[in-house]
Every structure is written in C-alpha cells, then in structure tokens.
C-alpha cells in the first residue's frame, strides 16, 4: 500500500534526513537561546532607564541585531562561508549549517527577549533594589525568572523559524529534510518524497510548539 502510493520513499533515507533536521534544529535552538539571551539582556539593560543605561552600547547592540536580522537567510549562509570554513573546515553537512542558523536566529530571539524583559514589572525590580540586591541578583533572580514564560514562548517561535531555516540551508547541501526534498524529490520529480518530507517537517513543528506551550504554561504562575 505505502510502496504503491509512495514508490520513491525509502525509509532509511527519511530517518537519516529527519535526524539531520532534528540535530540542526536542537543545536541551533540551544545556541540561539544562549546568544539571543545575552544580546536581549544587553539590549534591555543598556536601554533607556535600564540598569546599565548606556546610549552608545545600546546603539551598537541594536545595530548589530538589526543588520543580522535584515540579511535574508540564504544570503547570510553564503556570506558566512569563509567563517564556517575557518571554524569547521567544511561548508557542507548539518554541522556547517549551524553557524548561519545561530547567527540568523539569535538576533531575532534577542528582540523577543527584549520584549519579554520589558514586560517585567518595574516595581518588582525596584523592590529588589530596595532590598539591597546586586545587579547580577536582579538579573538572575528577578528579571529572568519573572519573564521565563515569555522567554520560553519566544524560543518556541524562534525554534519554528529555525526549522524553516534548516530547510533553506538544504539549498547549500546541509542535509536534512529540506535538502532531501529539494535534491531527491523536486529535482528528480519524485513528488512523493517532497510530500513525505513536508509532512515530517510539519510534524516536527507541531511537536516543538506543543512542548513549548506546555513548558510556558507550567511556569506561568500569574
């Protein structure tokens, strides 16, 4: 039955491609989370009225974030070729997609982090100050825990964007479902392969969204 409808789909290829997509997504989400959090904190803290309010530093951070968000992902990958080559010694395969994925995802997430931090009640920060809290305490024990549900929803949105980016990275031979759908499906007119790849990507997106929502809801005690 399956072979009749999808004659060109080979299970082991699909599993390999899915694994590559999952690998790229998970590692780039982790990298994006850390780098985006740092950039987002920097944006928030150096912003007007922030703990380290500093116009110059804020302008520099905002510029970097805006520039990398403005570059279309497919071009970003090409621009990062020398950097990727220097870092990993190759520009092909799932690993080679990671620098571009993280550098493309982090600025996007940084803006979401900034928004999440801005939603934290100023009064609570003030209360912590009135207790004699250090800035590091305010960041780690007030700002981050109080914005955690929004930080989780933000990384969920970013993760789904990154799943899309992994498919784009397929165009330069990164491997994964996007790569497989394009080269083995579309270019060889095996549309059943394209179809199955699409279903698998949708499934992964749904699972990520579901997990993100569940964690965010569990953390939200408001």
């Amino acid at each position, binding site marked *: 039955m399956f072979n009749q409808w999808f004659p060109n789909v080979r299970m082991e290829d699909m599993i390999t491609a899915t694994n590559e997509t999952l690998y790229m997504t998970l590692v780039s989400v982790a990298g994006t989370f850390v780098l985006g959090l740092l950039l987002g904190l920097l944006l928030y803290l150096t912003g007007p009225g922030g703990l380290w309010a500093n116009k110059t530093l804020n302008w520099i951070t905002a510029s970097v974030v805006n520039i990398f968000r403005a570059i279309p992902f497919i071009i970003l990958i090409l621009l990062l070729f020398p950097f990727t080559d220097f870092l990993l010694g190759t520009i092909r395969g799932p690993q080679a997609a990671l620098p571009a994925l993280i550098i493309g995802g982090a600025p996007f997430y940084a803006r979401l982090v900034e928004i999440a931090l801005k939603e934290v*009640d100023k009064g*609570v920060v003030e209360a*912590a100050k*009135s*207790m*004699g*809290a250090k800035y590091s305490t305010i960041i780690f024990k007030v700002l981050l825990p109080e914005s955690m549900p929004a930080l989780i929803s933000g990384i969920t949105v970013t993760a789904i964007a990154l799943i899309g980016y992994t498919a784009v990275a397929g165009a330069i031979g990164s491997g994964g479902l996007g790569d497989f759908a394009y080269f083995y499906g579309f270019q060889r007119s095996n549309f059943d392969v394209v179809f199955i790849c699409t279903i698998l990507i949708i499934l992964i997106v749904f699972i990520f969204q579901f997990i993100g929502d569940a964690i965010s809801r569990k953390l939200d*005690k408001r």
Partner: protein
Amino acid sequence: MITIKGLSKIFHTKDQDVRAVDDLSLNINKGEIYGVIGYSGAGKSTFIRLLNRLEDPTEGSILVDEQELTSLSKGKLRLARQEIGMIFQHFNLLWSRTVHDNIAFPLEIAGVSKAERQKRVDELIELVGLKGRGGSYPSQLSGGQKQRVGIARALANNPKVLLCDEATSALDPETTDSILDLLVDINEKLGLTIVLITHEMHVIRKICHQVAVMEEGKVVEKGEVLDVFLHPKKPVTKKFVDQVMGDPEKETSLQLIKDNYQSGEIIRLHFVGESTNQALISDLSRKFEVDVNILHGKITQTQKGAYGTMFVQFDGDRTEVQRAIEYIESTSVEVEVNPHV
C-alpha cells in the same frame, strides 16, 4: 533615627526643571510612626524614595541611624538598604515565587544560610498572620494578604526603618484597617521606626504619632498628629482634617440646630485627646440636674486619644446649667456656650 536636612530633588525635563522635593528638613525619632501626607504631585513619593536612595538626591543630607546615606558608595548603600525595609502600593511581589520564597528573597540577598532562612521565614509568616499560606503563589492571594507578604518581606532582615509607599491605597477600607493594625502591632512589638506616605488622613489619624503635610515639594506643616488635627494652620491641612472629621460648622448648619432647640443653652464641646473625660456626658447628668441632649458631632480616635467636636443642648434650671458648664471648664474638654454660626 532619621535626620533630613535641606533635601532637594530636581527632575530635568525637556520643558522645565521640576523641584519634586524642595529644601526639606525633618527629624524622625526612633520607634515613631511618622506620616507624610499630601495630594498627588506634592512630592511625597519622591521623598520616600530618596530615603533609601531609589532616587538620588540633588542636594541635602539624610542621616539614618548616624549613617550618612547620601555619600555611601554603591556597595555600602546595598548593605544600608538591607536595614531599611520598604513596602509598596502595588505590593511588588515576585509572581514566580511562592509566599515563602518571596519572604526568603531579601534573606538570600543578605546571604543568610538556608536553614536560617527557613526558620526566619516561618517566624515572619506567623507574625503577619499568613500561617499555612507559605506554599501559595501571590496570584492566589487577596490584596490584603499580598500586602502582608510585602510586610513580612520588608521585615525579613530586621530593618531599623520601614518605609511605606502608599501601602494601603490599593486596598478596600476594611483591609486597610487590618493592615494598619498590623503596622501598629509591629511598631509596638519590634520598636520599629515607620515612615509612611499617604493621601488619606484616615491613615494618619489611625496610626501616626507625627505628621508632616507636603505641598509642592515642601513640608508646610508638621507636628504631633493631635496638634495638627486641632489647630490646622494651612488651608491644605484643614482640607485633610475635614476629610476625616467633616466640617462640623458647615455640615447640618449651626443655625438649624439653634432654630430647632430654642430652650436651654447650645454648647459646643471640643475633645482634644484626653481619655479621662470620655465619660463626660454621663458624668454631667449624674452630678447636675440638667438634661443633656446630643445634637450633632463626631469624635474619632487617634494614637494620642479622642479628638472631635460635639454639639449638645443643656436644659434645666439656669444656675444648674451654669454650674455644669463651669464643671466642664475645669476639665480638659474645651467648651463654648452659644457658639456663633
């Protein structure tokens, strides 16, 4: 305990400089509940935030327990702040932490060990009457309970001073009273100095020993609560006093009373914080052959005793009425016969 000299705070805005606090000097004694009252925009919020340097003063000095606050370095200031508790109008609790963990937060900041934190938090939960609610999140509490958590949190590091920033303004009247009772209780039990700002004279009347009235960044009147109630000098103070007392002369006008009660004498009694003469009316009717008819009035309680005005009618034999009046004059209650309209 707190000595404030020449304190000013100027905010620079695009159009103009705003003097939120203007050359303010105050003395607050240890163990006192000191109230600062003013309308919004009077600068009282800025004032209280200057006391723990949430705002940095433009000029002036603040001495808290012999320590000059204005010249402290950041690190020293953080230590000093651990000795100054603060509670807020909107409670400012961390919603991500339970009641227990909210109260433990200042202890974590002060570097208290986990076992000691546990012990201290349990004490505090008991003190503010929230036993059994330690595991709840702030969102599961009522406004009054949230403020109790705020108070417990502010007291965690055994501060010398408690600052209350409109602490009851977001609460209903009944809850306000229970929170005020708690503050008095803490003040008496721990000998804590409390500075509170409010726009409600009711709060001042109920718990404060001293009051300062603020207008346009300046203290326009200050003194013992009873004195200020009794002899308000500035129009703004009179307005605040009327907030609690009503204005007896304006209300139910005196003329109406005079028209309705022609016989005997109309007498105004002014009670000024003496608890010994509270049985005055029954005293009079027992000692003298006069009928005492209560016409109009309002008596209220302050920390230093009863305060208020009452209009009564004395009816009976003229000499007996005269003797009764002379008797009242011998007490601390002020008396006025046939007061003018």
